[in-house]
């Protein structure tokens, strides 16, 4: 049974296959997709979103490369393992680092929006490096 529907955000500026990869990962992270679940077939995604089948194939290949899913010939693509977002202790440490960064920015005179812009820009850059 197909568990999730993939969706696109045309205005996001993120490459379509990455959007698909992220959505599957998000679903894995949130527990919406569990090992053994089937992803929609390429044809289903294509019929749903009117996008290039090669794009869907590329996204699924990427997920497969990361060991998250596996294709079974003639059957479809199935989830192999779920994704945890790290352990809670890490979260606490990262949060502390980020708070320290925010304080530093305030002292340097940056306002709320400046910080948001900076953070987004760094996040985007790191994402791009991941791809490249």
């Amino acid at each position: 049974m197909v568990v999730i529907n993939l969706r696109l955000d045309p205005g996001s500026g993120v490459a379509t296959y990455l959007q698909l990869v992220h959505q599957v990962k998000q679903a894995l992270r949130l527990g919406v997709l569990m090992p053994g679940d089937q992803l929609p077939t390429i044809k289903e995604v294509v019929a749903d979103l009117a996008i290039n089948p090669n794009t869907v194939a590329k996204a699924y290949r990427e997920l497969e490369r990361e060991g998250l899913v596996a294709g079974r010939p003639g059957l479809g693509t199935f989830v192999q393992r779920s994704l945890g977002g790290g352990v809670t202790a890490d979260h606490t440490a990262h949060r502390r680092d980020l708070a320290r960064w925010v304080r530093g920015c305030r002292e340097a005179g940056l306002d709320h929006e400046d910080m948001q812009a900076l953070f987004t820009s760094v996040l985007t850059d790191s994402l791009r490096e991941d791809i490249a």
Partner: protein
Amino acid sequence: MTGEFTAPLQGGTALEATGLAKRYRGTWALRDCSLSIPAGRVVALVGPNGAGKSTFLRLAVGLIEATQGSVRVFGEPVGQRAAALARVAFLAQDKPLYDGFTVAEMLRFGRRLNPGWDDALARQRLAELDIPLRRKVGRLSGGQQAQVALTVAVAKRPDLLVMDEPLANLDPVARHDIMRSLMTAVAETRMTVVLSSHVVSDLNDTCDWLVVLNRGQVQVSGEIDELLSTHHLLSGPVGLADGMAARTPVISDSRTERHAALLARTGTGAPLLDPRWEARGVGLEELVLAYLRRPDAAVLPRPTLTRS
């Protein structure tokens, strides 16, 4: 190897043009056009009106003969041979059909004229689209006519489907439906598709190869993801712009007194050599527009195919 998401029929060359040129009554519609398109791609052929898109497509399907040069489809010269014709389907600009025929008769037309005709596929597609077989083609809506035309082209089971402005004159819903049908057909048949458009936004999620045709010449030919990842919009102090332009091919260059914004072909990897530059990615439309405004800039994949 993996299951259903194996790479499409890659490795071969679907379409190859060498020094292709076409002249109409003294005017060159296409000049020295050379390009190579791998099999299994969905190719967007974009360019302004009058750039030679229709001419190129009509040459590729053998409707007209080249003044110079040649086109090969899957290694075979294009021409009036039944075997060559059977491998290529063409959807012309206004999606011509015989208005007096019923939809069923259009299918019969396809069956009678094509040995590889897939009648089951055609009927299934039309059933899914709720298009009545007994209705006359002329009495269908524009979107339905486009779907029938696409069905006739797809049920021929071509290896290469060529479409000239398939989305022109369609409302947004019909455009989406046509694209969805097309993409489903591609997923089912793994055919190569070449479609032209002068509206780039239609092609964002559907095409994976871009050919930019400008003033009768090929300006860009390459995989879209690769093109997008190798071009960046760089913004930085105007004093550094000349230095950057000397190191990197710049496609568009807009400068104010202090600030410069360059759309540059930076190549893969980190484009920034100087921290004073800021780089961001570009969209397909942005990229195409930048190239169209600079007809002398070109990106062609292979050194053998560069323009003279």
